[in-house]
């Protein structure tokens, strides 16, 4: 049953060194505040799972928190490379990064398989591509009815899932809307789940309620209230994506020292996400 607690306590209680962790959110509702807190608490040897590593994992990889990445598309969308990801893969800095690479359809199906308690996902995928040769968790299975060969991908079963959502009620039931990505599947596939939310309310206020995307409190370990906690991603109905930040990130992350200074100043030297947001408003912050 979900407990409502500060984010720092949730990370301390639910994220251990060496865990496999899926922090999902497809462009929308990316749990940046939780990513920062994991860096702040110096978690290490993590297996990071995420369809689009994005800035959140560029930061964790550059900070040395990850030993392995399971992913399907690693770029800064519309801007260019994720430089910390590339530096880790191409040069092993700050440490070598093991890759397990899939395609989006596979990741989505494999989370659904994990959420369904199945050992693998079945999908029509990969024929003729070089991807399965580099990933032993992608194999094939023959359909017992038609004889068709289909891709079989090992289910994703993270130790921890972390997502950001718009609202929770005081019991810890979580409501999200807009672009939903694979958040529901990631939470249900994981052993434990942390959800950060924009606000905690008395009543989720869903009308009509029946088809709203709600994660019941009893599938969640911790709910933490972190207003603007998806920044620079966005929360539909609360704030827009900070595209300017995504563009500025290119120059911050391109250089190891600039990146390290940015992490120190804006994450390690701030107490929490409010502190991070305040540090961005200071005139002399490290930017492009």
């Amino acid at each position, binding site marked *: 049953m979900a407990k409502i607690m500060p984010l720092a306590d949730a990370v301390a209680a639910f994220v251990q060194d060496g865990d496999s962790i899926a922090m999902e959110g497809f462009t929308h509702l990316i749990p940046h505040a939780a990513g920062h807190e994991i860096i702040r608490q110096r978690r290490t040897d993590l297996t990071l799972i995420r369809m689009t590593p994005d800035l959140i994992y560029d930061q964790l990889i550059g900070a040395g928190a990850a030993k392995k990445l399971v992913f399907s598309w690693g770029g800064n969308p519309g801007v260019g490379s994720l430089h910390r990801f590339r530096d880790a893969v*191409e040069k092993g800095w700050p440490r070598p990064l093991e890759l397990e690479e899939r395609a989006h359809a596979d990741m989505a199906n494999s989370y659904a398989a994990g959420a369904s308690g199945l050992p693998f996902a079945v999908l029509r995928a990969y024929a*003729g591509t*070089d991807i399965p040769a580099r990933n032993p968790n992608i194999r094939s299975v023959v359909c017992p009815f038609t004889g068709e*060969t289909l891709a079989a991908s090992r289910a994703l079963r993270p130790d921890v899932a972390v997502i950001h959502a718009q609202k929770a009620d005081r019991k810890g039931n979580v409501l999200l809307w807009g672009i939903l990505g694979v958040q529901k599947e990631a939470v249900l596939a994981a052993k434990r789940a942390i959800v950060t939310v924009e606000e905690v309310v008395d009543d989720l206020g869903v009308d009509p309620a029946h088809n709203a995307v709600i994660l019941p409190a009893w599938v969640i370990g911790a709910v933490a209230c972190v207003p603007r906690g998806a920044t620079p991603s966005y929360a539909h109905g609360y704030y827009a994506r900070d595209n*300017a930040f*995504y563009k500025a990130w290119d120059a911050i992350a391109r250089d190891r020292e600039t990146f390290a200074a940015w992490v120190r100043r804006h994450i390690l030297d701030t107490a929490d996400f409010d502190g991070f947001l305040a540090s961005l408003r200071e005139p002399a912050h490290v*930017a492009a």
Partner: protein
Amino acid sequence: MSPPDYTTDEMMTVEAARQLGDGDVCFVGIGLPSAAANLARLTHAPEIVLIYESGTIGAEPDALPLSIGDGELADTALTVISVPEIFRYWLQGGRVDIGFLGAAQIDRFANINTTVVGDYARPTVRLPGAGGAPEIAAQAGEVFIILRQNPKAFVETLDFITSVGHLDGGDARARLGLPGRGPTKVITDLGVLTPDPKTRELTLTQLHPGVTVEQARAQTGWPLKVAPNLATTPAPTAAELEKLRALHRRTKLAHARGAAA
């Protein structure tokens, strides 16, 4: 002769937009494909259905999204569904007419590499990876690819096949059991290439105004086949350019928004 009043990128995007028909269901990649698909929607194809892999069906963005899941897409979509559903019911379910992709590199059979340049384990350049492209390339009814033509992008041999075009040519797609017809057009800043009906090797069938066959050959990393009846692309019309430039203006404004990092 005075120089044209449009850029090669504008010519490429306009010609790519023209390939899309009104009412087509188009699965759209981010970047150049998204620009072309939205230009089509704003000009000759108002009924085109744009699907983005973030789960937005029937998106009608006023400005181009910077990422594949910007709020603008959700706000203007007919419906927003989860990512597993978009890939399972809509793409794998066979409900997409055209997959519109960009690419880092292609070969003569329109296979795509977006994974690595060099060795996989020790890459010279680590590219973003697959995203949704492998299944779009396999399963959309047909595939259009848009990218700038140069020897780094049009290569003799790919270091990695991320998404299959026509593999080694001929009936390779049928042998692999791929549901869709695969790439039927490659639109570049120099012209249009289409697969030979039999060998499936990309053949230059169309040049944009002012571009020569020699230029196209020089920008291609393999001996480029050229169709005997080479066509010339009609130059962008004033209306097409006006719509495209207005779209880019709105996009620039939208992307500058947000508190600076």
